[in-house]
């Protein structure tokens, strides 16, 4: 194993990033995108 990787492994891994909020924002974003797609298809149904 190289020195480089050893250094990386000792970096602080988690704790400072609010993962729960990020995951929730991914899901909310996905729901918004799906709703927008549905609205788009309905709006342009001719």
């Amino acid at each position, binding site marked *: 194993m*190289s020195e480089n990787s050893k250094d990386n*492994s000792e970096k602080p*891994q988690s704790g400072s*990033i609010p993962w729960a909020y990020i*995951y929730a924002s991914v899901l909310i*974003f*996905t729901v918004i995108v799906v709703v927008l797609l549905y609205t*788009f*298809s309905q709006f342009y149904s*001719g």
Partner: protein
Amino acid sequence: MHPVDWSIVIVYLAYVIWHGLKLSRGTTDTEGFFLAGRSIPWWAVGLSVMATQMSAITLIGTTGQAYEDGMRFIQFYFGLPLAMIILCVTAVPLFYRARVFTAYEYLEQRFDAKTRTLTSFFFLLSRGLGVGVIIAAPAVVLSIVLGWNELVTIFVIGLSTTLYTMLGGVQSVTWTDVKQMVIILAGLSLCVFVIITNLPAGVSFSDAMNVAGAAGKLQTIDFSFDLNERYTIWSGMIAALFLFLSYFGCDQSQVQRYLTARSVDEGRISLLMSAFLKIPMQFLFLLVGILVFVFYLFSAPPMIFNEEDVTRAAAVQPIEHERLQGEFADAHQLRHLAALRFIDEQDTTERITARAGYIAANEAYQDKRREATEFVRQTNGDSSFSDVNYVFPVFVIENMPRGLVGLIVAAILAAAMSSVAAELNALATASTMDFYRRHINVNSSEKQMLRFGRLSTLVWGVFACIVATFATNLGSLIEVVNTFGSFFYGSLLGVFVLAFAVPRAKSAGAFYGLLFGIVSVWIASSTTDIAFLWFNVVGCLVTVAAGYLISIVR
């Protein structure tokens, strides 16, 4: 192609190879060759993850599918964001902290060597054949559309990718992926811009979407629950979720991407990048296909986009071909006029009539196209014939301006090469770490492993080219390879579910559970008509259930 387009393609190929080779200089140990010393920033890993997933056939197939079938395909990606979150919570930290080179190495830590070897073997088998198909599919299309020699195209794609992957390892693969993603997105964005700015006078973007929508091309969501229907919101949210969990969490070609990240957090962010961008990006690809559909409402499309096959059929039955060609041209003309009337009509009542007339004209046009497709199938004796993958390349070659043609062809090559490079790198890693170091030369030195890694990249690259030459002639081989992959994917996911989430699972349960899973998918595929996406659910659930029961009993 015009010399300007040729220059763009040649400059692209030369730059990618030169850049890949340049990055090979710092690669001196196995961790550098296979994992880039875990030093790649999250955004580069994220782009590499997306580039690896998007092969050339995804690029041209998706646009062609939108032209033919509309935007329904986008539902396939609805399960991807949730899959990424699940993997960020489970697989990424476990793999990263286990300090493994391959996903299958983790299975030895959790179960035993036999489970690791079996899963890695299945990966090598399915991906080794699959990478040949990844090369073959665009080579066939480009050789027919551009008149390139098929064999030369295969070896240009295959060997140039093998060269920089062999010398530079994952470092070269990742950084060339980044450039290739930029080329792909730039090419398609420009394509959208050119089509929109070249719509006929009096036809706005809104009009274009209205005619596409009236023809049913913009239907994005299908709420019906039908296991035999390939793309519904349920197959996208449930069945595709299993597929993405398996692909991003258990397939070495993707696991290796995020193992190169600087930390667990950066690995997670790289996957979440796909979660955010994949659906909008796929929408862009499908929008290109929709715009091609609109373009051909106002200018004459080819009856069949694969000119080689239709010419062959026409030579056998020239009178029938001429009749179809004439009727098809008439159907197009009627649809053209109906679309213009629909767009121009402002009065509400008259507009409803014009809309109905346009829909009927479009149906009649589609019927003629289906009749023409059937004619080619029957005359050439090829029941699986479809020209969907030829729609976008033919449109680009015949209608896009100089320069953009070269950029799009470079983008198609880039999509193929980025996937091939990641696959070759993953195949070499699994061969070296799961077989050479584990079984053949247990006490191998860094130098020996690095040499074997490079040699195995070369061997897999040549093997892929050979498979590709057969795949171009044997349509059924592509089907066999894809079917085999779907047999294996869900079951492999089941083994990892046992490893991550079932503390009582034992090695015998994982090993035999995997075999049970594969057999169950084979039975499901031979006795039912369920869409292939659901095989992943079947394989995973049977593997987990069988693995759990065997673990309890033994």
